[in-house]
């Protein structure tokens, strides 16, 4: 392997990428493979499969972003987990270490939510400036990169105990599209990664490397080109610009807490839907008093987190849901757009399990007494599923700068979120369906469980055709500043019903192609 590159702080020919997850990590490798010089700045440390820990709280302490954030709005997370609006990762590889691996393409109609759903009162729906036809080839590339099962001739994973309960219930209530999903978890050796060993603990980082993560695929491969330098424990404070309004570099605190400035030809922001808008807002200047890329006033707005929730159920006999791949199970029948159900958009149902420690923390936060503890007493006999559906973008569901500051004195993100009536109607529908599924296989008790701290954080720098409607164009490029890009889930115009990582990866591959072309043409 070639020695990883080392670039000078004054080298203004590099592309600086902030964040190394599914968006930033993939973009870094894709650019490096094309010969572009990249400096990737990552706030967290570097952990590889041998470092990951099969223990929920210990792993959380190792990987989770626990820097301060604040919350507001009527969502229950703001009450139960006021300082922890999201369960996402601070490490090289970002949340691609933690994700469950579900890799679904958007459905055709979801690219054009405003057109297909019509205006929804209180929602800020917009069509993506992209569609399925445009994205098909990029999805092909993303699926091949991730080794997604059930496509490209790759076999699906075998179903675990939790899946078998879920499948039997789903078929009993008449669902048709039920299988172990399209997973970025190998069912057989693929691309130098081994097959899934049904270990569980997918959320804690896959110790076998069977699940795709940029941490041990794209990042080291990018480094091997000699074109990528990853600096870990580099906490970016602000993006700088010149008097022409072009970005020129970033200031960051290095691992020793010293402020550094890395010059850049291009800056790509991929810190997730909280940190990316926070960074743009914290980079305000005389020329851009409301923050960078924010002439539209849209930076931070339209935060989406998917309409989620879980349904657990207890049975007469053991299920042992924690054994095996956590999320290899899906029912897609409710993912369609069918307003006769009382809401627009649709939702997926996917198998899910938590270990006992996290079940105690998340089953019904704040609850106590025997209603709660008798459910846990049946933990061994429990099956579980997760609801993931399209939520409505709303202008005031937004990330703003809080009065709270972090260890570096930088204002942290405040996350304001309230459910839209459409979100509530969808969640209630899904709770009823999930409970019906488990009752059909003899559930003795069903537990409609509230949403956890968010893992699907979307919007806040959304893509739009017209500059006044969003922050970036169809390439994730700022409408205002041509050499500033957004490369993570914050560029999502709407959320669709699908787990977002595959789309984030597809957009990053596509963006790398665009950046390389624009650099060659001398446009950026």
């Amino acid at each position, binding site marked *: 392997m070639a020695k990883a590159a080392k670039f000078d702080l004054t080298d203004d020919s590099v592309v600086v990428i902030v964040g190394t997850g599914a968006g930033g990590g993939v973009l870094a490798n894709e650019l490096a493979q094309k010969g572009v010089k990249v400096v990737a700045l990552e706030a967290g440390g570097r952990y590889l499969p041998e470092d990951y820990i099969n223990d929920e709280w210990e792993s959380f302490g190792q990987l989770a972003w626990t820097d301060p954030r604040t919350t507001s709005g009527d969502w229950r997370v703001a009450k139960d987990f006021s300082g922890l609006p999201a369960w996402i990762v601070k490490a090289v590889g970002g949340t691609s270490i933690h994700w469950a691996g579900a890799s679904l393409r958007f459905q055709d109609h979801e690219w054009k939510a405003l057109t297909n759903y019509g205006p929804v009162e209180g929602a800020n729906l917009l069509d993506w400036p992209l569609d399925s036809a445009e994205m098909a080839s990029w999805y092909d590339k993303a699926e091949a990169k991730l080794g997604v099962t059930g496509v490209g001739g790759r076999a699906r994973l075998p179903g675990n105990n939790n899946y078998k309960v879920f499948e039997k219930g789903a078929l009993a209530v008449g669902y048709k599209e039920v299988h172990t999903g399209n997973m970025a978890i190998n069912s057989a050796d693929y691309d130098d990664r081994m097959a*899934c060993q*049904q270990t*569980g603990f997918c959320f804690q980082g896959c110790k*076998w490397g069977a699940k795709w993560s940029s941490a041990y695929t794209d990042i080291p491969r990018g480094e091997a080109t000699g074109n990528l330098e990853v600096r870990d424990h580099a906490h970016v404070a602000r993006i700088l610009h010149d008097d022409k309004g072009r970005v020129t570099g970033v200031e960051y605190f290095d691992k020793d807490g010293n402020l550094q400035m890395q010059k850049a030809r291009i800056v790509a922001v991929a810190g997730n839907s909280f940190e990316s808008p926070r960074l743009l807002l914290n980079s305000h200047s005389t020329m851009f008093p409301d923050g960078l890329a924010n002439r539209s006033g849209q930076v931070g707005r339209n935060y989406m987190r998917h309409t989620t929730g879980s349904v657990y159920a207890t049975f007469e006999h053991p299920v*042992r849901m924690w054994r095996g791949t956590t999320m290899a199970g899906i029912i897609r029948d409710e993912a369609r757009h069918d307003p006769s159900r009382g809401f627009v958009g649709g939702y997926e149902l996917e198998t899910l399990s938590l270990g006992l*420690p996290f079940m105690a923390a998340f089953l019904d936060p704040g609850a106590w*007494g025997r209603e709660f503890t008798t459910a846990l007493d049946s933990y061994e006999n429990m099956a579980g599923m997760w609801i993931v559906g399209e939520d409505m973008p709303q202008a005031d569901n937004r990330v703003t700068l809080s009065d709270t500051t972090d260890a570096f004195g930088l204002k942290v993100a405040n996350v304001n979120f309230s459910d839209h009536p459409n979100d509530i109607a969808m969640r209630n529908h899904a709770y009823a369906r999930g409970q019906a599924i488990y009752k059909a296989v003899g559930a003795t008790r069903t537990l409609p469980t509230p949403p956890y701290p968010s893992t699907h954080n979307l919007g806040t720098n959304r893509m739009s055709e017209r500059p006044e409607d969003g922050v970036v164009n169809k390439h994730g490029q700022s409408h205002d500043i041509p050499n500033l890009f957004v490369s993570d889930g914050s560029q999502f115009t709407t959320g669709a019903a699908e787990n977002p990582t595959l789309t984030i990866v597809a957009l990053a591959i596509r963006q790398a192609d665009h950046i390389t072309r624009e650099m060659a043409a001398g446009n950026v």
Partner: protein
Amino acid sequence: MSQLRKQGLTRRALLSRAVATGALAVAGPGFIAAPDAAWAVEVTAISEHQMATLLQMARDIYPHDRLGDRYYAVAVKSYDVTDQKQMVAEGIVALDAAAKQAGFDNYLAAGWEDERVAILRSIEDTPFFQTVRGGLVTGLYNQKGIWPIFGYEGESFSQGGYINRGFDDIDWL
């Protein structure tokens, strides 16, 4: 993490030194112990009554009839420090006052779980109650010793996962 230790005391000796703390645990000078002397926990910063009350509170907040007191004792042992002394003292004074209003000498004197739960409900919005409850979520459920009692198997990587150990062995569907 735990200061638990097996006491070399006979049941008789324990009982003779005990003050009444309800059916749960026996308190003596500097410790509280199981009535059968199966375990004991020393107290240093807080009083025996306070530790016995915390232990009963823990049981009443997250009652699992198959979990022995020792797990709850471990979960609340962290309050036996100078830093927590005032919070605990004030909280338990308020809890015992609420019990008096309900017609009991103190919280521990309420004999039925339902009676104690009603007292707890009357203080459940206080910082004291929420601190104790919140601490138990990890203090109790993250003790690896209780996991097998719930059937939870913990880490599996060191055993090669479940690919050959029953990931799909469900036999009753």
